[in-house]
């Protein structure tokens, strides 16, 4: 493990890993998070994740020295604190030029056919690192570098709910209508965020996401089911 600790103030600290998006770091983050939640449950108000950070909001005040002690403890953790079961969720996507307004442009940029883009995008298994940006927005790791595309210079005023898009080295689904600077390649008919549920999302951090191309007809069916709360998520 290669972790630094940074104390912003007495109740807000951050653990920082090297600047990369990787499974190993995610696994270590999960281990450390589990350890801290077990060991310091009363002292911690909230633990949040970034690609290479764990941010700890505390109930109690801690000093620089406490921080060093915690880091010491983390370094002495046994290598494997248990495995993290992860599901592979199948997420339907209708890839077409109607929903994927930027599919043609993307094909041009990368000198690929639209079918090749869909194939590359839907055959990759992505890892859910954390939620952020919008309620229910999944930060996914694993986009094939053939599809890396710089974000648009000026964001679109509105990306429809469910838009599947590529931006920089990432791909994701807009869980609600929002402005956005990513390139739209399709749309997902499944509702990704439901505030009326105690846990408003389905995939958990560490789970995998695989996009399943669907036809327009199936898309409409699933959208209806999901709207009525009858859609059942599938996983391996």
């Amino acid at each position, binding site marked *: 493990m290669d972790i630094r600790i940074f104390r912003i*103030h007495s109740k807000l600290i951050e653990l920082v890993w090297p*600047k990369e998006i990787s499974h190993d770091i995610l696994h270590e983050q999960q281990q450390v998070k589990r350890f801290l939640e077990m060991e310091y449950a009363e002292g911690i108000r909230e*633990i*949040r994740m970034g690609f290479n950070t764990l941010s700890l*909001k505390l109930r109690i005040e801690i000093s620089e020295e406490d921080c060093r002690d915690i880091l010491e403890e983390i370094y002495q953790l046994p290598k494997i604190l248990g495995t993290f079961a992860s599901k592979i969720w199948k997420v339907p996507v209708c890839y077409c030029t109607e929903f994927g307004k930027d599919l043609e442009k993307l094909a041009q940029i990368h000198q690929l056919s639209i079918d090749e883009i869909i194939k590359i995008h839907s055959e990759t298994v992505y890892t859910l690192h954390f939620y*952020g940006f919008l309620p229910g927005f999944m930060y996914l790791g694993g986009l094939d570098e053939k599809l890396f595309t710089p974000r648009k210079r000026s964001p679109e005023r509105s990306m429809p709910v469910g838009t599947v898009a590529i931006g920089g080295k990432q791909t994701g689904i807009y869980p609600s209508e929002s402005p956005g600077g990513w390139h739209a390649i399709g749309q997902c008919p499944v509702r990704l965020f439901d*505030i009326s549920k105690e846990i*408003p*999302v389905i995939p958990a951090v560490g789970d995998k996401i695989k996009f399943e191309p669907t036809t327009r007809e199936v898309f409409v069916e699933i959208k209806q089911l999901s709207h009525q709360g009858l859609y059942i998520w599938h996983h391996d």
Partner: protein
Amino acid sequence: MIKTPAYIHFVQPGLLSSIQDLGRFGMAVYGVPYSGVMDRFSMTQANYLLQNQFYDSVLEMGGPGAKMVFEMPTRVVFAGADADIYLNDKQVKAGKILDINEDDTIHVRKFRKGQWLYMGIQGGFESEIVAESRSWYSGITPQSRIEKSDSVCYLSEERFYPALGSHAKMNLNWFKHGEIKVFKGPEWDQLPKLTQNRIMKKSFTISTLVNRMAYQLEETIENEVEPILTAPVYPGTVQLTPNGNIIILMRDAQVTGGYPRILHVENNSLNILSQKRPGDKISFSI
């Protein structure tokens, strides 16, 4: 004690008016902002004067114009921005508990100082609780701001209140000074010493980009700090963009961001900062 649900009818909504409490916690891991009042100090004052619970929800207004009619008796109090407030055409002061009768009208006119005005009400508002909070936020609560001819529920309580001999003298100058206390953010040390000095010595101006999500400053700071991998951010996080803009995140801020987090505003200073208006000057102190 009999409490009867009653409504405030908004003849005019005013600017950026919404119901807020201390915020929604525990949902940030799913991407939901904390929300909550921009200025906690003023909310706390209003609730304290009414002998409410400290967490009771209040009406937050981001500018003049709100005109509201009360269905049934209650008590309200104003705190926060220094504004011209009228109860049935008679001007009233912040910090004074106002006895409201059936069909009384309150009209908020000019804002003289400050950005956010709060109206506390006996027992708080009865708007919907979503994920343990009444704070309005787009996509989470049914509404994100009060629109013309909206109604908001409160509980009217018939009760004898002894006349108050005097009322709290509100100090409306508490947010006057421009010194904003900050801590070093996770990426502060990546800035060259010269840039760090410039940021700490310079006086900054609040730009017109001011809303519940963030306040942007007018002056820019040249920098070559690399963007970071998306990481958690909080109300109070100070970001430095590649074009040198300084953005201070406020209560409705997204939960993650990719710009370097150079500073972090201390809690009380965040209340002071929230009351700054476009054109006001601030400086940072560590």
